[in-house]
């Protein structure tokens, strides 16, 4: 059962990843990455990381990929021809990558870590991978990392605003150059008696 779940998830996660690289239109790449993420979250579940699976979906699929969607739609579907890398990279790139893969595989499989060949210990601490456990770890053992991460997020947010925000002068907001209404018109809006009288008088005169 577990094996089926893994291969199913792995197949789609890998398929999604390949599609990200292979399709021409960036918009489709984004969608492929969403598929990849959903199945990756399934794999996370297999590793008993429930909180991270949910976080992956909420943060990645729910927020980060939305940004990608916006940008891909904004920039427009600029399609590039398939496999049109710079000539030197067209050959070297894949070779490098495959070499890296082989290196990693050798490193992992040849590492002699006996535990690698097992599904992991059965007696994980209770609540392993729940929000509670992760939260405790975060707040007790890794507080500095947590704070650093929050600082990083803040800096990134500021940077994004600086980068993508429009310069002030060419921004013409719809509400900018309007004067706010005064309060006295809250009661509208009847003409002064004089204006009316004058108008009436004129009307009679003309008749």
């Amino acid at each position: 059962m577990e094996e089926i779940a893994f291969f199913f998830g792995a197949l789609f996660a890998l398929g999604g990843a390949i599609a990200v690289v292979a399709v021409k239109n960036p918009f489709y790449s984004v969608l492929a990455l969403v598929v990849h993420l959903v199945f990756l979250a399934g794999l996370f579940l297999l590793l008993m990381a429930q909180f991270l699976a949910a976080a992956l979906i909420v943060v990645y699929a729910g927020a980060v990929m939305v940004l990608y969607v916006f940008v891909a739609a904004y920039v427009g579907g600029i399609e590039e021809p398939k496999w049109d890398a710079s000539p030197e990279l067209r050959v070297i790139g894949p070779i490098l990558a495959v070499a890296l893969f082989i290196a990693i595989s050798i490193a992992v499989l040849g590492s002699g870590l006996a535990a690698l060949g097992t599904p992991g210990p059965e007696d994980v601490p209770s609540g392993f991978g729940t929000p509670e456990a992760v939260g405790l770890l975060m707040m007790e053992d890794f507080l500095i990392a947590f704070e650093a991460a929050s600082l990083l997020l803040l800096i990134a947010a500021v940077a994004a605003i600086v980068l993508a925000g429009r310069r002030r002068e060419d921004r013409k907001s719809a509400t900018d150059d309007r004067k706010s209404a005064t309060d006295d018109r809250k009661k509208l809006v009847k003409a002064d008696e004089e204006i009316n009288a004058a108008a009436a008088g004129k009307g009679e005169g003309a008749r």
Partner: protein
Amino acid sequence: MARMEDTLHDRELRQAGTLRDEEITVADFTAELSDRVPGVEFELEPEQEMLTVNMGPHHPATHGVLRLVVDLEGEVVKDLKPVIGYVHTGIEKSCETMQYWKVIPFVERMDYLSYFFNMQAYVGAVETLVDLEVPRRAQWLRVLHMELNRIHSHLVWLGTTALDLGAMGVYFYCFRDRDRVLDTFEMSTGQRMHTRYFQIGGVAEDIPAGFEQKVRELIVQLNTGISQYESLLDKNEIFLIRTKDVGVVSRERLLQLGVTGPLLRAAGDPWDLRKEGGYLAYPELEFDVPVGTVGDGYDRYRVRLTEMRESLRIIEQILDGLPEGPWIADDRKYALPPRAELSTSMESLIHHFKLVTEGFRVEPGEVYNPVESPRGELGCFVMADGSSKPARVHFREPSFINLQALADMTIGEYVADLIQTLAMLDPILGGIDR
């Protein structure tokens, strides 16, 4: 100037697919047969980040078949061009083929929400042409119906505007009250819309017994109705932020653009032909002209709502002081005799026959007769050439003129505000296209 050849040449080019302008022509329609929503044609111009959206002619918020070619940058309107003519009916041409008294039903169908005003503009012009004095009772009856019509028109405006803003309930309440107003029309004229009640020289028929009672009831109902709208909209924060400070154009610019009616009054100009021109019974009646201070959507809404109340005031005065007397002029040369006379008076029968078969002739001349319609100055220009048919009938439609201000009101606003401003403009496409 060989414009004719030019047009022909353009047409050939367009059919050959080599000439394109932003108009979607018949040829374009059929040639492209695009699968999009009606009339939607887009192109993204990356240089300007502009999106050209084509609203209409079939679009729920254009109050008919108006087409707006809107350039959007994000959600902000950068340019706007109204394209009109989708209900062009050729009424002015048709009027030229009809005798003077047969034209009345045609003019009613121009601005189909203010038919009494259209009639008054036309009938008044013809009366000036033939120098006919309208009896006092007829004048008062005309004012009564016109003011009821003003309320009716504003009710439809309020309902559709509220619908455009998403407030469904108000739409239904407005139409409930509108039906009540139409009941009174039905009682006095026999029709809900397009009543053909005004005749040259007076009105078609005296009001029936019980009419006054009915209108008095209506006044009470409308007063509560208007209070209901106020409590539904005026205390609604969303409505207020949607309408306040939106679509402001200065009073001077509005005057340059020829805008009249509630739009001008909302900008603070108490210009009302009922006061200025003083036609019919208006000089004898007491009413105020509501004006706004800022000229935004909220002021337009307030001005119209207050106008409805003022109209109710006028109606009440009319009911109190309706003079007795004939309701149609005595001059049988121009005015149809009352129906009852036909069975007793031979002369009336002859007049009736003559009027109905060949109409009456009018000495050559030209007259421009303006009235204050719910949307502004509604002027009727009638040109007589001595025959029994008018040589030209032209209407100065307030909706048509006011529409020119739309671009000024909306450029730089959000697309949602465009909808709101358009609704506040209250264009009636039948009036615009005629």
